């Protein structure tokens, strides 16, 4: 079966530009998560969706970051006015349902480089 997929795998952009990162979760998984991993660090939580709604967006660093999941499946992470500090690997994960003990399955990530 297909795992979590993310596109693009790599994205290079210039400072100040807008980017969209896409995540396709495992079919049937209702919970979806975005994390960001900077060089030498572990993944850091950004936002969590249960169905179509953002259940917890406490990890979004500022209002330049926004994520949607309009039909409860595919999600898009949107970053406005990108800054060099946004350069990182953006990871998406999904789980069958919500719950602290539900296993989160990660995609390969999108490597974003802001020049």
């Amino acid at each position, binding site marked *: 079966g297909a795992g*979590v997929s993310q596109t693009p795998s790599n994205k290079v952009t210039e400072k100040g530009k807008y980017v969209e990162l896409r995540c396709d979760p495992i079919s049937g998984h209702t*919970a979806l*998560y975005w*994390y960001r991993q900077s060089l*030498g*660090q*572990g*993944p*850091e*939580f950004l936002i*969590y969706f249960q169905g179509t709604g953002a*259940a*917890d967006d*406490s*990890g979004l660093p500022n209002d330049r970051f926004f994520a949607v999941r309009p039909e409860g499946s595919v999600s898009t992470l949107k970053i406005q006015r990108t800054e060099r500090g946004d350069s990182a690997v953006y*990871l998406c*994960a999904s*789980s069958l349902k*919500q*719950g*602290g*003990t*539900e*296993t*989160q*399955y*990660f*995609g*390969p*990530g999108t490597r974003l480089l802001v020049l």
Partner: protein
Amino acid sequence: DQQVKQNSPSLSVQEGRISILNCDYTNSMFDYFLWYKKYPAEGPTFLISISSIKDKNEDGRFTVFLNKSAKHLSLHIVPSQPGDSAVYFCAANRDFGSEKLTFGTGTRLTIIP
């Protein structure tokens, strides 16, 4: 404030020997702990987990030990195999009320043939 800490950035172990990876946490609200393994250019893969009501969980060659009083957990891999070479992340969350994982900075394990 690093709530989950992995103080060893790297570890080298001879093939066939035991690998021990350590993790400390500071948030006493954490009650569920996980280990993820990550190969280059791939996402983290779930390995094993433990709830705070247990002090040990075993799955094949992998065993996780939890010492709640010390806020410390460890992952034992025995015997170590070349395919175990990867970055290992410790993660924690709360059983109820929080789905977000808090990760450590990772330990790069290299198994020497």
